[in-house]
């Protein structure tokens, strides 16, 4: 399969072939990061702008390293140092950035749909690095790559996603991605954090955490967004941890060789206990390594070939 796509806005719109191509390309790119000279000339002369309206360490650094390892030039713009604080609209910012002729804009924004809107304003590629509670496609791709690498397959794998499903773009992108590739997905979390109708995306809602992780091959813990605590989705971090945090006791009720994922940043002792986060079945750091390879694959497939400008 070949992709003629201009943008990567979400997993929902991708075909199974496109996801598989992205994953196999990312597998090849892992080798580049293992070399002594971690650079290939593939995207020489291309410019990538990282436009982040929300804080990020992992994702922004990962996109930047991916671009640089492919010899593209990466420019980072964060909200605190941009003209957005002077009241410039997103549309104006986009038009101005576009005038500098970048080849791709990687955008993270707190409002769902921002990348989609941006993609209509600019002719260059737009890559969604997380938009509100909507999608985070590169995170889902690196999660799929990590599972595929460890278990050798995604088809038939049982995935449990635990935590704040309602606010999680990671959960949404992963539900789309894993179900498309034939995995079965179960979600669990405090009832206030399970959006009504989430089953329509093709996942099952478990009654409680033990029910969710009992048969799971992969347990994905989501970050509890403590900054949203004032909205009182659960009584206290301690209670959350007792009911939905993954610790050694709860892990004993799961399959022996179940693997554990977390998109980061980790709230140690809240959604996951330190001994589990650092334990032998935790692939949290493999996820980060795979993130660079996945983002190299995204750049390669979107920026490499010539595209008729529309």
């Amino acid at each position: 399969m070949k992709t003629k796509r201009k943008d990567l806005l979400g997993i929902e719109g991708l075909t199974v072939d496109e996801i598989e191509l992205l994953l196999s390309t990312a597998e090849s790119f892992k080798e580049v990061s293992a070399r002594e000279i971690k650079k290939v000339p593939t995207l020489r002369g291309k410019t990538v702008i990282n436009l982040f309206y929300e804080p990020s360490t992992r994702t922004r650094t990962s996109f930047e390293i991916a671009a640089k390892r492919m010899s593209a030039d990466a420019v980072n713009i964060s909200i605190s140092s941009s003209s957005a604080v002077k009241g410039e609209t997103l549309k104006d910012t986009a038009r101005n950035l576009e005038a500098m002729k970048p080849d791709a804009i990687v955008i993270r924004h707190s409002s769902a749909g921002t990348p989609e809107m941006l993609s209509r304003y600019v002719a260059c590629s737009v890559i969604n690095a997380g938009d509100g509670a909507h999608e985070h496609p590169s995170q889902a791709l690196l999660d799929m790559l990590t599972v595929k690498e460890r278990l050798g397959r995604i088809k038939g794998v049982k995935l449990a996603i635990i935590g704040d499903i309602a606010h999680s773009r990671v959960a949404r992108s992963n539900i789309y991605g894993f179900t498309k590739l034939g995995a079965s997905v179960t979600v669990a979390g405090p009832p206030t954090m399970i959006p009504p109708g989430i089953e329509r995306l093709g996942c099952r809602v478990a009654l409680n955490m033990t029910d969710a992780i009992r048969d799971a091959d992969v347990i994905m813990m989501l970050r509890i967004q403590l900054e949203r605590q004032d909205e009182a989705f659960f009584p206290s971090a301690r209670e959350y941890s007792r009911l939905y945090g993954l610790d050694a006791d709860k892990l004993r009720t799961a399959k022996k060789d179940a693997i554990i994922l977390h998109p980061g940043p980790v709230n140690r002792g809240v959604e996951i206990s330190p001994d589990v986060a650092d334990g032998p079945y935790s692939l949290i750091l493999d996820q980060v390594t795979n993130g660079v390879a996945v983002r190299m694959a995204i750049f390669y497939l979107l920026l490499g070939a010539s595209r008729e400008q529309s």
Partner: protein
Amino acid sequence: MKTNVVMDEKAIERALSRIAHEVIERNRGGERLVILGIPTRGYELARRLKKIIDEIEGTDIPVGAVDATLYRDDLAIKKTQPTLKKMDIPISIDDRRIILVDDVLFTGRTIRAGMNALMDFGRPLSIQLAVLVDRGHRELPIKADYVGKNLPTSVKEGVKVRMKEIDGVNEVVLESACEGKPIT
């Protein structure tokens, strides 16, 4: 489309066996040699060449694959991205004699890309080029050290190497296009 078999299984075997002897003679044995093929068919040829040299010399020469895709000069002008293949450099190539193997030598651009890729892995003592078929029409100053068969062609013709491991049959065919349509 007219196709014409220009090398059959026996001819390929003989050519590889001659190349093996030439490699051994020129390098005085198998010492410090590393054989690297360009996927997909160059890699299969590299493995066959290794086997023949090992049988003659009693050596175990490291064999691997060099994927030149990321170093190609036509990525920005192609309509779609070529699929990445395997990169497998089994040992450090510093101070080694590299035998780079490909199936068909044509414009020389793949070999240029392959050599650039290799240079990112170290500083080999030398790189020698072995190809099963040299069909001419070079666009870069590149020449093979070992050639299975020199095959004068027109640019409108296509040369296809088929190998048992991939295509189920060992042969080299020359394809002539209909109505002057070039084959690539």
